[in-house]
């Protein structure tokens, strides 16, 4: 394996991590707002709050890791993506800022406002939508490299069916991933009413995610034939991904082993996401930038990998502790230590 491939694999792992934890967080926000609007707040509020409270900051860090890491390993991405993403990325930052800060103001500061809850729920859908645009741009066809630098063709981007399909997948995935996880979480908490409701949401959103994913593959054939052809080389990964999807839905349908249902879902997304990434290889931005010409020097790459391993040795035990104390702690999940907050 070359350093370039190690670098992009590490970054892809972080992006995948963000997609999973971010989706749970964003979807939870949306369900929270929706349940308030539909007068079902009493069913979902506690279960969602209990999960989100101790982990909200951690979610954001996955994203920061990804973009700091990609500039580290592939400094040319700063030039290409930095130049073209000013507007879309700024919008994402603003949405993330509103969401993150108001979550903290609300949870720790006790601000009670209805409009806040609406904003919180809607940003949960807009953030993934705005971030997913980056994946569309990476497919090429929307970027022009001229004498004055790199520019993005917004008209083309917004008129492209591919970009809307990717937005659709990102939004439906957020709702699906989140609902499956929260079903499991509610099951752990023995909160049967919440579990039943969330299970319904999960089943409701399972179909649309699969349909929008198929839509993307179909459109890729016309938008980026090279990528589409490469996708067939890793078709086996897509098949495994689909099988995992079937397992999740079946387990949810039969109402058993919700933990395994979630694990299958993680594998479903992992296989699909890596199949997408591998077939995207070697391009970071079609057709201008590959991982080879955008790569940093060897010394820096090795230093980053060493730092990464050292960092993981520090973080994995810490994350384990966090998970043990909160997310997977039966007593906490059931609501004991509710008053633990200083």
């Amino acid at each position, binding site marked *: 394996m070359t350093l370039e491939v190690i670098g992009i694999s590490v970054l892809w792992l972080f992006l995948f991590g963000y997609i999973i934890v971010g989706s749970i967080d964003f979807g939870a926000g949306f369900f929270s707002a929706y349940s308030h609007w539909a007068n079902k707040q009493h069913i979902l509020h506690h279960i969602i709050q209990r999960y989100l*409270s*101790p*982990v*909200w*900051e*951690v979610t*954001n*860090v996955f*994203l920061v890791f990804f*973009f*700091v*890491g990609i*500039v*580290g390993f592939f*400094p040319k*991405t*700063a*030039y*290409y*993506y*930095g*130049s073209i*993403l*000013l*507007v879309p*990325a*700024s*919008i994402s*930052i*603003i949405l*993330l*800022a*509103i969401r*993150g*800060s108001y979550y*903290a*103001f609300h949870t*720790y*500061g*006790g*601000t009670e406002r209805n409009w806040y809850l609406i904003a919180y729920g809607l940003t949960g859908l807009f953030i993934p939508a705005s971030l997913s645009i980056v994946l569309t741009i990476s497919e090429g066809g929307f970027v022009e490299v001229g004498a004055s*630098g790199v520019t993005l063709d917004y008209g083309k981007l917004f008129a492209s069916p591919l970009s809307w399909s990717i937005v659709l997948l990102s939004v439906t995935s957020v709702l699906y991933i989140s609902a499956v996880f929260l079903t499991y979480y509610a099951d752990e908490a023995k909160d049967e009413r919440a579990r039943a409701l969330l299970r319904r949401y999960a089943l409701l959103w399972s179909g649309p995610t699969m349909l929008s994913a198929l839509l993307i593959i179909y459109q890729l054939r016309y938008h980026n034939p090279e990528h589409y052809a490469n996708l067939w080389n890793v078709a086996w990964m897509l098949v495994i991904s689909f099988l995992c999807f079937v397992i999740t839905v079946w387990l949810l349908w039969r109402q058993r082993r919700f933990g395994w249902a979630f694990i299958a879902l993680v594998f479903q997304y992992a296989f699909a996401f890596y199949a997408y990434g591998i077939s995207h290889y070697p391009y970071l931005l079609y057709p201008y930038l590959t991982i080879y010409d955008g790569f*940093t*020097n060897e*010394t*820096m790459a090795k*230093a*980053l990998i060493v*730092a*990464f391993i050292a*960092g993981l040795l520090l*973080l994995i035990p*810490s994350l384990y*502790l*966090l998970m043990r*104390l909160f997310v997977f702690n039966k007593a906490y999940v059931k609501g004991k*230590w509710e008053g*633990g*907050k*200083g």
Partner: protein
Amino acid sequence: MNGYDPVLLSRILTGLTLTVHIIYATIGVGVPLMIAIAQWVGIRKNDMHYILLARRWTRGFVITVAVGVVTGTAIGLQLSLLWPNFMQLAGQVISLPLFMETFAFFFEAIFLGIYLYTWDRFGNQKKHLLLLIPVAIGASASAMFITMVNAFMNTPQGFEFKNGELVNIDPIAAMFNPAMPTKVAHVLATAYMTSAFVLASIAAWHLWKGNRHIYHRKALHLMMKTAFIFSVASVLIGDLSGKFLAEYQPEKLAAAEWHFETSSHAPLVLFGMLTEDGEVKYAIKIPYALSILAHNHPGAVVTGLNEFPEDERPPLYIHYFFDVMVTIGVFLTVVAAAYWLGSIFRWKWTAKKWFFGLLVAGGPLAMVAIQAGWYLAEIGRQPWILRGYMKTAEGATSSAHVDTMLVLFCLLYMVLVIASAIVLIRMFRRNPVERELAERANNGEVAP
């Protein structure tokens, strides 16, 4: 677009983001240490007042961390969005500490989450305090790593520049560049100092209003002592920073000091103004002081600004930032010393209302000094973004939308600053310390 200047607009937007971020970042670096000190004193003295201090500070701290996180995410992305050419070049040499900063912050965030939700879960305050140590270490390590990047912009090293390409890259040498030791030390010491003054301000505010509760007295006393120690440290490190500048960035020191001609026995110029023909008026000149600041010797030769090509001189108005920073720094050190001596010798005047008023101003003043210091550091590096290698104008984006983004971010930061202030004020008004003490006394936790 007439008059549209993406370089200037990028500078303004970056400056704006940093101005907002540094308020929350300074608190974010310093306050965990203050919480740890309070909790530790509380455990040692078995005094629940201090434990309650730690609890209440933590509650406020979380709000500021949230804004710090989001503004930090903003600046992290804006580095690439507004300065794509710079990041493409510098990223090859200096991305290691940027990457490590993320790890440090991640570490801090995890333990802060745990600390926050486990006040009563262990039954033993000492165990709980242990959880705060990674938070404090992570916060200070973040500051250290990010300051390393800034130091690198001032004194880049760890690479060779050949035919427009960077070769022989040494990321460790880039991290440990000449500006790094004084800069990191100054940033950390002033963050602790400012956080202590901010927390002391809050206690002083209650005392100034006439609330003489022992809780506030304890808080003020603890924080003023801490503030004094870090003020002295900041002044000493500030002196070392002067010597660093004289050696490695003489143009910054010369511009800040309006020292135009190279000369020995150079005086330190404080305050004053510059006339149109470049004459210094109404200034206080301390004889030999600049020579001493620069080289520890009254007769030492200090390089003047005229030695540098005109297009490589920093703007002269940075002198005012220098004045503000130094004046406030020295003033606060004197105030902290007076408080401390007053408490030892039981002076009456340090317990008077006007003196509490002075202490109330201490926190905001310290924050102003932090801002002035960063303005001095950043504008004093101009016209360079990477000193000696890349000018700021070459590093910026050429995007056509920086103006719109500037407006959007202005609105965002206004909302964040105002909302966080309102949330903090309301949070503590709703739950005054007297009430919380009474409640905890009812639960048998504290003596009333």
